[in-house]
């Protein structure tokens, strides 16, 4: 096919912003049109490259928020001291162009198996983004794999994709814990994800679950460590760390 990216090479492509929609006060989802997008797997990334007028180049890696088969969407949280995220969340408009390469990654991915061991997804803050792709993928392919998402957010208004996560589909459920602020009458969990909460929420190790943990580095270290303490084999706990942002 003429113009298709060369197989075996990762090439920068021009993507056009199709739409931008707010998720929370500091989070936006951006949908892109890319002429030769070869598709992606749930959990994969793309790199974004911005070039300033003076030639300065900044590259960042973002998780893909949409399911395989859907238009490429990224969900980006504005970091106060960020170089790239303030532009993506505040300046970018439909019709704007930027450079993207991908999809990238073969470790933190879920293939959407029709049947299989239960999935445990543990998200801290914007670490929920790849799990949105996985949950949408699961629904689209009609997978019956039981899925539980444990999502740690600072407060209810900080929850990304809340309306969508309220209807995760048959065999999927979402458990929240709010770490900083709980609304009056909050019946869900409060405080950080710890061994006690994981004992209550995580699938028992005897069912052979597969766990994915994504969020700030310190969050991932604690959650992955606790899962191993609960009896999850380390190779059944896949991790992805976003670095040193404030705890969700």
């Amino acid at each position, binding site marked *: 096919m003429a113009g298709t990216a060369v197989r*075996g090479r990762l090439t920068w492509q021009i993507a056009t912003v199709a739409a931008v929609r707010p998720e929370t006060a500091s989070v936006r989802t951006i949908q892109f049109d890319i002429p030769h997008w070869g598709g992606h797997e749930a959990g994969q*990334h793309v790199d974004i490259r911005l070039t300033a007028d003076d030639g300065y180049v900044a590259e960042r*890696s973002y998780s893909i928020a949409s399911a395989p088969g859907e238009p490429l969407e990224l969900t980006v949280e504005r970091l106060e001291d960020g170089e790239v995220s303030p532009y993506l969340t505040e300046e970018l408009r439909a019709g704007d162009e930027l450079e993207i390469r991908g999809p*990238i990654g073969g470790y933190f991915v879920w293939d959407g198996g029709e049947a299989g061991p239960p999935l445990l997804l543990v998200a801290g803050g914007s670490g929920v983004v790849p799990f949105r792709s996985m949950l949408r993928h699961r629904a689209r392919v009609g997978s019956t794999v039981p899925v539980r998402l444990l999502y740690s957010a600072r407060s209810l208004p900080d929850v990304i994709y809340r309306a969508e996560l309220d209807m995760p589909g048959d065999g999927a459920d979402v458990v929240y814990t709010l770490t900083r602020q709980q609304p009056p009458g909050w019946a869900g969990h409060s405080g950080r994800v710890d061994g006690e909460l994981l004992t209550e929420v995580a699938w028992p190790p005897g069912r052979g679950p597969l766990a994915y943990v994504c969020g700030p*580095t310190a969050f991932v270290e604690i959650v992955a460590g606790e899962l191993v303490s609960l009896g999850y084999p380390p190779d059944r706990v896949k*991790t992805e*760390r976003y670095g040193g942002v*404030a*705890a969700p």
Partner: protein
Amino acid sequence: MTDELYGPDDSALDGNAIGGLLYEVFGAEMTAAEATCAHCGKTARLAEAIVYIRAPGTVMRCRTCTSVLAVVVRKQEMNCVDLSGLAALQAS
């Protein structure tokens, strides 16, 4: 900086964040590749390596013993790659 909920601030990422750079260097998806540390002998996926991107260049360290596995420094359009901390690297 210490966060009251999850402990010390840590600017370290992991190998997932540099899947694009690794692809650029090796010409293949490498985050699921198995890397053996030349110092402690432990084998793990490159996705699990401790990664610093704020150093001059990108530094990958062993999650078990924290020894340097690999360093990639980009100079203009060229990547200078030091893999001397790897005893073995097996793409999946």
